[in-house]
């Protein structure tokens, strides 16, 4: 079905492999960073990081000690890269890229979503498989991932691949881009997880065992963070979104016996 929130099994598998690999990469990366939590070359200063020489709290780190973290980081990087290439190759060949590449109407659509979340607009905009803010996020995340990988290679091999390191402004700056890409990926991932649990927890099913009840979509529930989380579909919205379903009386029977209708 067009606009369905169901995901192809390859998308589901690569999503969770990525979630695990990314968590380990971030945790081990922060442990590596803590060995020298600054960017300045020895004997110099660095302009653009306000927390020079302040370590990241240990609970956010993984690997136990520097060597342990490095071993995890340099092993998991292959999982992350290969998994990422499978995902990108798949969505390119299978057409899912159309769901994430922003359209011409992106600024207008994004504003519509923002104003809805800010209670300026009353009704949830109808925007297909993903809303404009999701679209933007899922488009930017792989780009940040590619940046993280390229800057990571540049600081792994600053002599043998010096051309790449120099392209990023040298070792110190390459390390900074690597860190910044991580910060942005973590921030977007946090927002992503927050929105899944507070707006559309039903998406957990479509991203794991598969299947999505379109009557529970954020549009159908007119859901905002924490609002209408477990609400029954709004008949008016369903009539607009899925005229076929509204005609069969699916919405009414759902109201009578919600437990049987899953």
């Amino acid at each position, binding site marked *: 079905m067009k606009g369905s929130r169901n995901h192809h099994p390859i998308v589901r598998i690569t999503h969770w492999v990525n979630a695990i690999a990314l968590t380990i990469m971030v945790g081990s990366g922060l442990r590596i960073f803590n060995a020298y939590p600054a960017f300045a070359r*020895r004997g110099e200063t660095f302009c653009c990081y306000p927390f020079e020489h302040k370590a990241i709290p240990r609970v956010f*780190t993984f*690997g*136990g000690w520097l060597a*342990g973290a490095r*071993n995890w980081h340099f092993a998991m990087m292959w999982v992350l890269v290969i998994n990422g290439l499978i995902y990108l190759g798949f969505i390119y060949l299978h057409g899912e890229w159309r769901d994430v590449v922003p359209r011409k109407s992106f600024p207008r659509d994004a504003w519509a979503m923002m104003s809805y979340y800010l209670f300026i607009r009353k009704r949830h905009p109808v925007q297909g498989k993903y809303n404009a803010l999701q679209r933007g996020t899922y488009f930017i995340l792989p780009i940040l991932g590619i940046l993280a990988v390229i800057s990571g290679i540049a600081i792994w091999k600053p002599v*043998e691949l010096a051309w790449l390191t120099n392209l990023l402004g040298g070792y110190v700056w390459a390390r900074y881009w690597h860190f910044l890409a991580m910060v942005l990926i973590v921030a977007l991932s946090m927002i992503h997880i927050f929105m899944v649990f507070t707006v559309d927890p039903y998406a957990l099913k479509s991203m794991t065992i598969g299947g999505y009840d379109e009557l529970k979509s954020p549009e159908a529930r007119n859901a905002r963070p924490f609002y209408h989380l477990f609400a029954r579909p709004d008949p008016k919205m369903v009539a607009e979104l899925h005229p076929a379903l509204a005609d069969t009386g699916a919405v009414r029977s759902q109201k009578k016996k919600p437990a049987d209708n899953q």
Partner: protein
Amino acid sequence: MTIDRRKFIIVSGSAVSSALIAACDSRGPKGAQRLLRYAERKNEVVERALLRHTHMDATLAGTHLAGNALPSYYVSKHVPVWNEAQRGKWTLEVSGMVDHPLKLTLDDLQKLPRFTERVNHYCVEGWTAVEQWTGVNFSELARLAGAQPAAHYVDFQSFDDKYHESWDIESAMHPQTVVAYGLDGQMLGPAHGAPARVYSPVKLGYKNTKYLTKIVFMPVANGGYWSDEGYEWYGGT
């Protein structure tokens, strides 16, 4: 199959978060260590394939010598200093799979063709420093000693307790690998490995043995101080 969504969300959410909390700052599952070592061996293959004797490290314009800001590391309790009264004159022994084993004093080293380079220091911790090293190219010592073709590895040993690190011969023969006795235009001090140390920008700091006493050519690698503790043995840049 009927799945209570709320239950599903709670169970899956708490499973993921408790797994994360349990994993935090641990070294990870024991069983994974074999996989990590496997990945390290594969990474070594990649790193060896990337190594070129024509790839040179160069410092960026506008960078300054680290000078006193260069940290000094050693594994002994105190700064290792060669005690002539106790141990006699310091010499550097070049031995193992060589046709002409050498025993060089600091004077001997200084009489050999002098090489000076301004390069980056890449520490495993993530910092870099610009340094200027003066010494003898490793390849020159290998030529003088008549290193045998079957010597695929070389061990750099020290008088800093039992500190040593073995290298692949290709990295050691890189034109920027030097047995250094001078730093930033002065004789090497005790903090940075006096009387002599190995230095190369193609290896991470810990591979560059300070307080050098012996260079041994070998058919196989024999690990190293930090490599045996769990750091990558190859440690290339």
